[in-house]
Every structure is written in structure tokens, then in C-alpha cells.
């Protein structure tokens, strides 16, 4: 059953990676604005040629 030591080590390292990813996102301001992106995604991009109509 010593495999447990290895498995627990793996799981903790994996969890630490996710925690690190969260910190990274936090530091880069990904959580600063939680509303605008939800609206932005609904707005269509227009091809540049079509604009002069």
C-alpha cells in the first residue's frame, strides 16, 4: 500500500498547480471585471469592408 504515498503526493501537487493558476489569474486582473465579458461575447464582430454601408 506504499503506493498511497505516491498518489497523495501526486494529488497534492496537482491541486497546488490549480491553486497557482488561480493566483496567476488573480494577479493578472482576470477577476477584476466579472460582468462586461458576458455582454461582450454577445456582440458580433463586423468585417471591415461591410462597414461603409
Amino acid at each position, binding site marked *: 500500500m506504499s503506493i498511497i504515498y505516491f498518489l497523495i503526493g501526486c494529488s497534492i501537487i496537482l491541486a497546488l498547480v490549480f491553486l497557482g493558476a488561480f493566483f496567476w489569474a488573480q494577479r493578472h486582473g482576470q477577476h477584476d471585471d466579472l460582468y462586461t465579458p458576458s455582454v461582450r461575447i454577445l456582440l458580433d464582430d463586423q468585417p471591415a469592408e461591410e462597414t*461603409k454601408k
Partner: protein
Amino acid sequence: MAIDTITQSTCYHCGNDCTEGHYEFDQKSFCCVGCRGVYQVLSQSGLCNYYTYNDHPGANRARIDKRFEYLDEPKIVNDLIDYTDDKITVVTLYIPYIHCSSCIWLLEQLNRINPAIYYSRIDFLKKQINVRFSNDGMNLRQLVELLFDIGYEPLISLQDVVKKQVTGQKDNLVRKIAVAGFCFGNVMLISFPEYLGLSEYEQTFRQFFGWLNILFSLPVVFSGGTEYFVSAWNNLRNKVLNIDFPLALGIAVLFIRTLAEILLHTGPGFADTLCGLVFFLLVGKFVQRKTYYHISFERDYRSFFPVAVQVMEEGKERPLPLSELKVGQRIRIRHNEIIPADAILLQGEALIDFSFVTGESVPVSKTLGEVVYAGGRQTGEALELEVIKPVSQSYLTQLWNNEAFTRQQDNRMRTFSETVSKYFSIVLLLVAFGSLFFWISTDLARGLSAFTAVLIVACPCALALSTPFTMSAALSIFDRNFFYLKNTAVVEQLARINTIVLDKTGTITTGGGINAIAKHAEFTDLEKQIIYSLCSNSSHPLSRQICQVMGEQPRLNISSYQEIPGKGISAWVNGHQVKIGSASFMHKGVDVNAGTEVHIMIDDNYCGAFIFKQSFRNGLKEIFGLKPQYKFYLLSGDQDHERKAMAEFFGEDGYMHFKKSPQEKLDFVKSLQLADRKVMMIGDGLNDSGALKQSDLGVAITDDVNNFSPGSDAILDGKSLCKLPAFFRFSKDTVNIIHISFLISLTYNLIGLSYAVTGNLSPLFAAILMPLSTATIISFTSIATHVAAKKRKLL
């Protein structure tokens, strides 16, 4: 053709009715030149999609005067921008008008209008735009003018509201929650084998898991827990027992006992209870902290005043930052601009609207050489003035030197939980030491175990969570009803109020000035011409309004014109003797109604009157339904000519106070407080600032929360004033909910204690009890708040 008639009625840009004028472009109707201008700018850049996402997304552009010369002044620019080098500049601007998806779309396409803009991003909730532009292509003034041209005028104020809030709160609470949550999850997983039972030959795992648990507890205690230790210590030094004391004690005891049990191989410890406790506490803290990014509660006169003022120097005008304005300088104030400092009028016809400063609803005309106090808004032609006092020492701004603005505000609101936790801590310590001394004579180990167990199990986690969760739920209910509270303590304060003081202009009445003119007469064309001719000769505000009502009329000859101040005007017009003025001026019995009246008499025949009525806000009746329990006072800076109309609401004269200066308002609130009343002040203007600050709960009322409102504890949207009684009842419900949830959590504590005092507290029991009580409290408070809000029809 049929389509044309339909589209003609409303403006394509802003959706207003095209009543005053009608402008066309691209077969679309616009209500004013401004709206058409915006459309032209957008259509030239191919940005007409703006109109497809929402109907009439634009703001009305009736006012089209640009005044951004001051943005050429490097000193002002440097205060506003975030970053600049020789190539690019980054700036964040606050645009109150941002309100829909069209706004986001358009403002993020700015570089299609001007390619010098590299990047523009909207933060919708904060109503901010972040722009990066090339210094070669444009400067800040051009950027602001571009935003103005497309209908999004930024609000530029040196006391920059938005930026200050962003820098204010950086204590890494989210990070601490992440760490605590991470450790809590892992520790719980690792503790399971112990709870399920480990067999003899698995004893090595027990040690391994124990060490891991200690490892995971360390960051939780030393990152998340430290603030509780610090706060408890500070409070103890100030001889205050607040809820942080038992919490810090609980955290410390949990950690030490876990450490001891694992190191001495006597048990598995309480690591999961410890991590769970800190995690839930931090979440509670997070929930309690609600911020309205786009609303500021801390505004003072500086955000009401402009950033810069036009100064006349050697015959030339140049913009000067307000902070550098000195005594003796000559300033130029144009239509709709605010006079920033006490000054002497040198040139121009001054007609100044002081409604926001004094509560006086009628614009005041000033003669040359007279002192004009700061804060008034000029309506009419440009003025030239000489400054006689610095901005910070003018008549208006002196109010901010009052002690009400400088004293510490901490003790103003005492919350229920603060009161309870004092007694809770004392009882907790008594029980803990009691059980220690009970066992110590027979069994030292058992005594210590009972002592620590009591401190662990009675750790008031649920108690600490019940207030934040109830309050934040209540806050979002208020928020839905357009009542924005500064923080959660305000809800409890609201429940304690028993006296309501109301301002008149702008609070009970809508808008700044007189809105409704009732014509109590039918006039013939000739009479209209006579009235118009006479009134156009007078500069009295009421005369001007009458002129507006009459519309453009041919002017007739006037002779022996006389104006008696405070009474009226009389003259001979085309051979008719005409008198226009107050009732006493008519020398004839005339019915006196509520409001300001102007009567008209031509050749001794009474023709009727104009009645200037201030329109009241909706729902005043509902508010005064609170009357027996709540006392109402009127505190107005205005003249008392509406005393009669107000008496209907306030009753006797003792409850109405007119002609009060800002300082007198503050003193009046203070005198009520000395008589042991809990005072809620509702006001809207700068003249109420002192009273709002002094009162137990200052509420600023406004028709648009993004507009300027004086510093206060809460901001109420004018249309929700009628819900005030419901707000009061709901706040009382909320306090009741907190009381009940305190009872529930105390019950849990008692159950736990009954085990703990015997010294036989198993870690599994603690690990179940703590999250269970927390879950009960959170679900109870949110459901109960919801139900209460439904009952009060706030949801």
C-alpha cells in the same frame, strides 16, 4: 408615408419626443442638433450597429457646448492619466452614461473613429473606460471631445472617485480564501481514513496523515488567522471584548491542540475543523464586503465643483486648476457653470441658481459689485467675477471644517453582534475555566482536554457568520429597490431610526426649481401680448417663466413702468393699466392658494393668476403613514411660502423649519440627537451635507445615482422614496432574523458544550458540528431574508 409619420414622433438617437424641433438626416428623425451630430459622427465611421443592439441607446444631446480647454493644461492632464511616455498615454475615465450593450460595443470600437486609439476597454459595472492612445495622433482633450461627440461625456473630477476606491481595498482576501479553501479540502480528504478507522498495520499512515494535516494547517493559521489575532489583541488593549476574541482563541486552541495530539500520538487532532472554521469566517468577511463601484458615498464639495476655471489674465482667458485659484484673480463663468469661490460680480447679468446649495428654489439675480457665494450655478450670459476668498474658505465650503466631518465615525453604529459577543466571551471563559477546575483535582489531562474542547466547540463561527450573511442578503434586496447602502451596519441603523428629518427642495419636491405652472385663467390674444410685453421687461425669475409660458408674442409699447421688489410690476401698456404681482399687490380679495402665485389685473379687471407649484415626489402620502411611530421634521433652506402646503404633511408649525443655513441644519439634527432621538436625515443638496453627516443615518436622495450627491450613508433613488415604510419594516425584520439565527447558533454551541465539558469531544463530532451549524445559519438567513422581503413586497 405612413412609416414617416410614426418615426417622426421620437428621436432616432435618444428616444425623446421631437417636440421642440425636428431635424432629419439619412431619413431618420432627431430631436435636436446634438443628437443628429452624434448620428453623423457614427454613420461616417460605419458604426451604425450601435442602433441595432438597443432602441434609442443614446443620451439626449440638447446641450452641445464643449468646455474642455482645461485639458490642454499639462498640470491637470498629469493628474488624470494613468501612464504616459513619449509614444503612448493610458487613461481611465469615468463615464456615468454607460448603461447598455450598445455602449460597450461602441466605446470598444473607438479606433474606427480615430486610429490613434490603440485600445479601449469598458468596465461596465464600474462605468469606466480604459483607453490607450498614441501621443502623435491625439491628446487627452481630443479624446475627451471625441467621447463627448459620440454622446459619452466623461465625468472628470480631481477627487477621482473611482480610482480611490480601487486602491483602497487590497488586503488579498480572495487569496486568503483560496488558500484556506485549498487546505480545507485537502485536510478533509486526509482526515477521512482516520474517521473511518485505520487497522493495526496501517499505523504508519496515521503518522503520515498527521504530519500532512499540520503542514496544511500552517498556511491557514498564519495567513487567514493572523488578522483575527491582531484584531483580538488590539481590542483587548482597548479593553473591548468583541467577537474576534473568542474566534482568535478558538483558532489558537485548535491549532495548539492539533499540534500536541499529533506530536504526542494521542489522537488525530482537529485540523479539518480548524481549516473549515477559518475558511467559513473568511467567506463571511467576503460576503459582507459589498462595494458599489459606480456610487460614491464620500463625495464632498470638491467633486461638485469643476476641475478648472477660466481665469482672465492680461485680457486673455486661460484655464487654471481650481486648487491654484487665488484671491484677487478674475474669473469668467459661463452659462451653466458653477461659481467655485466667493467672488464679487464685476460684469454681466447674474441670475444664479442656488437650489443645490441653499435649497432656495428660485434663481437669484445679483447686481454688479455684490458678493456671489460659491456653489451657485449661473444661468444666462457669461459673468466676470473677482475672487475674494480661497475655494476652501468660502461660505459654503466652511461647513466641511465642522467637527462632524473630522471626528471618528467608528462608534456611531454599534451593531447587535458587538453587544452580544461581549457577554458571549465572558460566559465562554467562565465555562472553560469552570470545567478545567472541576476536573483538575482528579485528572489533569482530562481537565485540559475539557478546557480546550470548550473553547473549540463554542467557537462562535455560526455567530460570526449570521450577521454578514443576513446583512448582505438584505443589502441586495435594498439594492434591487434602488436604495444603496454604504455598508451592512447601515441596515441595523435603519431599524433603530425613530425620527425622520426631510429637506424640502429636491427631497420632497422634485428637481431643483419650480416645475409646474398652472394657468388659472384664459387669456385673449391681446392680453397675452400685454402680459408678455410687461414680463419681458422684468428680470425677475417668475416673470421670465411667465414669458416662456406665453411663448413668443409681439411686443407692445410700455409707459410708466414700475417694479416694486417683492410685490410686482405695473405699467401702462397700449393704453391699458396692467398690474402683475402678488395677491397683496392687487388690493382686492383674491383666493390664496398653496404655492407661489402671480396675479394679473388689467384695467382693474382681475384676469386670473399663474400658480407656481413645486411638484411633490410620488408616494409622500405613504411615507407620512409612518407617522405615529416616527416623528417627522421639515428642514428647509428655502423661504416659507410653501408652509401651508407642507402643513398638510407635517402638521403643526413646530415640525417645520424654514430658512435654515447649512450650519443651522446640522445644529438642529444635533439638538434632536441630544433629546435622544435616532435621526435619519434625507436630503439632496450640498446644504444638507452637514446634517447628513451629523445624523445617525444620512440618506442622499437623487434622481440619478450617477449624478452628484452629497456624502452620506445611503443613496436613495427618488422613485423609491415611496417604499421607505417598507424599507423600515424590512430592516426591522432583518434585525429579527439576526436575533433568531443567534439563538440557533447558541443552541448548537450548547449541544457541543454539553459534550465538551465532560472532556470527551471526539474530532469527528467537532468536524460535523461546525460545518452543520454554519450551513444551517447560512440557509436560514438567506431564506428568511427572502421571505421577509416578499412579505414587505420588496421582491
